[in-house]
């Protein structure tokens, strides 16, 4: 299939106008030796055949019902209202470039302005950018921001319960700096231990709450502690939790980042997601990424533009706050439509359902012989994820769940935390009904030690 529209006559006319007799001559500058390679690619195909072929590829994934999914760990199975995709499919949005020409881009610009406004409300921060790539890269840039505004410092204190892959990405980004991560490798540090690691070389303290194990962190006094040493508090948040639970802004966060996938974006095997990045107004000139601001046109009509581009690579080049250019416009639009559709009551309700159903699941699983829920922190409040100590290896349990019950079990924490072998991180959202949870519990029960499983 080719989407090239030229007729042979048009092509000939154009070649003539350009002064070549064959299109090949357009490429005389390309060294002969390498010109026009025969690429070893499969023979071109048509849309009809493609759909069949790729459909077969897709069929090699094991299908799982949404209600039977209990895997989270950074990508979640939340409800996506049908309004979202109906907006995303509009060609005016999805086939546009970054809104460099505001007069032709008021739709996207206003939507991004609204996105920024809602993110600021949810996080209780003063400014939000118009999106970043994903949660981990937003976090990495938050750390770079902290290193920059605390110039000269080289230490970033991390909770070990920040998403392990976020920490990995931060490590990659820190290859370009002299700074190091501290605190997160022990694998067991509590908040007060982290606080004791703070000193005058500390650029930032980074926590996640609810943390990777699902728990709300004890945040009292944290902001004060890090501010006292002149560092920043960076918080990784779950955007759904912000519908009901206190915001990072309310306890003194300086930068809030999150992965926005739960806000109307399908898991899509890990991407594209959406990086949320919000901070204090005082750091606005240090913010990475696009920023939409309100203004007026020549007849006094309200309008929106990309603003403070002096921070950005295309103006400031080597001295830009970040290299980011293409960001996540369309998934940010998804989040805006999602938040508008859910609204105040809807997001609150989604968070409530996550809380209620995950607690029901935790109680039922905790009551099973041989299973222990949140053994490391039985009293810490949690949101939608919790830890289950299993009587068997996680991989085995997951295999049985999937093959015998069609259930997608939780995340194997032993991959990241040596002390959490045979511990599974279970996610329960508004998509899992009581019946779904009961089916999970019944399936697990058979796996208890000594059962016929």
């Amino acid at each position, binding site marked *: 299939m080719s989407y090239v529209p*030229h007729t042979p006559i*048009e092509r000939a*006319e154009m070649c003539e106008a*350009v002064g070549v007799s064959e*299109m090949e001559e*357009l490429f005389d*500058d390309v060294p002969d030796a390498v010109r026009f*390679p025969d*690429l070893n690619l*499969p*023979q071109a*195909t048509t849309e009809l055949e*493609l759909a069949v072929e790729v459909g077969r590829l*897709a069929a*090699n994934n094991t299908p*799982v019902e949404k209600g039977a999914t209990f895997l989270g760990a950074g990508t979640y*199975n939340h409800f996506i209202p049908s309004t979202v995709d109906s*907006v995303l499919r509009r060609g005016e949005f999805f086939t*546009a*470039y970054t809104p460099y020409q*505001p*007069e032709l*881009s*008021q739709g*996207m610009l*206003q*939507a991004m302005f*609204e996105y920024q406004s809602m993110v600021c409300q949810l996080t209780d921060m003063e400014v939000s950018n118009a999106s970043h*790539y994903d949660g981990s890269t937003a976090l990495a840039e938050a750390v770079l921001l902290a290193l920059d505004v605390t110039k000269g410092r080289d230490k970033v204190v991390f909770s070990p319960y920040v998403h392990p892959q976020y920490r990995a*990405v931060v*490590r990659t980004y820190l*290859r*370009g700096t002299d700074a190091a991560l501290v605190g997160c490798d022990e694998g067991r540090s509590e908040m007060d231990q982290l606080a004791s690691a703070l000193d005058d070389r500390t650029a930032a303290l980074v926590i996640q709450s609810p943390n990777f194990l699902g728990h709300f962190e004890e945040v009292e006094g944290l902001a004060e502690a890090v501010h006292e040493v002149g560092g920043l508090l960076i918080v990784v948040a779950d955007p759904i939790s912000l519908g009901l639970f*206190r915001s990072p802004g309310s306890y003194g966060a300086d930068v809030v980042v999150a992965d926005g996938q739960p806000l109307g974006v*399908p898991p899509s*095997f890990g*991407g594209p*997601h959406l990086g949320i990045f919000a901070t204090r*107004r005082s750091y606005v000139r240090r913010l990475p990424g696009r920023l939409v601001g309100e*203004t007026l046109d020549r*007849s006094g009509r309200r309008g929106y533009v990309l603003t*403070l581009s002096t921070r950005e*690579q*295309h103006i400031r*080049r080597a001295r830009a706050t970040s*290299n980011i250019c*293409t960001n*996540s*416009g*369309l*998934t940010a*639009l998804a989040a805006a*439509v999602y938040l*508008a559709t859910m609204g105040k009551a809807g997001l609150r309700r989604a968070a409530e*359902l996550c*809380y*209620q159903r995950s607690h*029901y699941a935790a109680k039922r699983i905790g009551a099973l012989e041989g299973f222990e829920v949140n053994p490391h922190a039985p009293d810490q409040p949690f949101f939608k994820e919790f830890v289950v100590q299993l009587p068997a290896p996680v991989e085995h349990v997951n295999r049985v769940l999937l093959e015998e019950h069609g259930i997608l079990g939780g995340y194997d924490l032993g991959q990241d935390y040596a002390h959490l072998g045979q511990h599974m991180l279970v996610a329960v959202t508004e998509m899992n*009904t009581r019946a779904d*949870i009961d089916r999970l519990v019944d399936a697990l029960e058979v796996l208890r030690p000594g059962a016929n499983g």
Partner: protein
Amino acid sequence: MSEPTLYELSVAGRRGGLELPRADVPETELPRELIRPDNGLPELSQLDVVRHFQRLSQKNFGVDSGFYPLGSCTMKYNPRVNEEIARLPAFAHSHPLQHPSTVQGNLALIHELQEWIREIGGFAGVSLQPAAGAHGELAGLLMMRAYHEARGESGRDQVLIPDTAHGTNPASATMAGLSVLEIPSDDRGNIDLEALRAACDETTLGLMLTNPNTLGLFEERIEEVVGLVHGCGGLVYGDGANMNALAGVARPGDLGIDVMHFNLHKTFATPHGGGGPGSGAVGASEALVDYLPGPIVEVVEESERGHRVFALGSPQASIGRMCTFLGNFGMFVRAHSYIRMHGSQGLRSNSMHAVLNANYLRVQLRDTFAVPFDRMSMHEFVCQGTVEGSDAKATDVAKRLMDHGFHPPTVYFPLIVPEALMIEPTETEPKPVLDAFIAAMRDIADEAVRDVETLRNAPQATPVSRLDEGKAARELVLCDRATSAS
């Protein structure tokens, strides 16, 4: 008509938005101290929401709306079939942490795409991790850094960047902890070879080369350029944003590029989305392949009948992860379909027609708008948006194009061309569209002399006229004032 914001439309207590199920489990008490009084979101009905975003969309211009010759952005047709395929539930609802045995379809697709991009680029390996071009640049520079460090050459911290380069290049260099040395262009729009020669030394990490460059010109002495850099021990990074001129025409790896990003959202037609998400695959030569960001997909088993089993693996000396999971899989699906439909011939045909379209515009417009480096261009060319006898600026010409129903070209870039208009038509525009654009440009040139005020007051056919960017930057209204009312 100006569209109210979501917060302006919001009414306290509004119903008809989205209801969620009633609780079906015994209630657990909420931790009161953690509960917020209000989450600050607006309150709207679904119909409010649908209407609002429909109206906003009608104030937005995409490739679907009309000709969009935005230079360096490759605004080509985004095939609709790819949108359908990327939404197949088996793809869209698969979880990145599922056991590999349950997502062999995804892994096979990723592996194929890695292989195809490797082949198109002429590289030894590819990682699809980066989320965009700039992200790929950062990955590539970190790989180059790691390579030199592994060879005990940590002193190499200088990146040579031509003055035509895109802003992301120097910005990425800075993020990678490197310093930048700008290399001037010569009078044919190539890298100034003498300046390059002078710059190459034992502090040289490498060169970031965009080829064709942002003037739309093929680097005429590419072999010498690469030779100079390699000669001093440096590496050559390729900025692949302009690959739509070369796919199927020349493989960057064959030209000596060591590492390069591809913008799947340009060359391989994944939609730009109003500013992303994109995807910035990086390809690497033998020398750098072990440093690629991971995980990438590998074949771990292959039966005699050709049945393959895939798993995730990490290159041996990988710089690490560039994003939380595997990259923007939804974009992989689209790019995979795109390449699959085109094959070798189809990709070459795309490049050829993209280049033909650009040159056609160039020769038709050069008598009206000066083309400073007027030689055979690749997929785009740069002219000056000024006309003799008028003091209209490139901006005025750009804004006036909107009244003719066209999206303007890229303006004021590259920096070395004053009043630059960078025009990239892409291969999916038919001649009648190009001819209409040519006519409009000539019209505007006439008008610039005859009636410059009309240009200065353009656009008029758009939902808003020219916006006061200064005011926006001074006042920094970044959140809706109406939020406080909610």
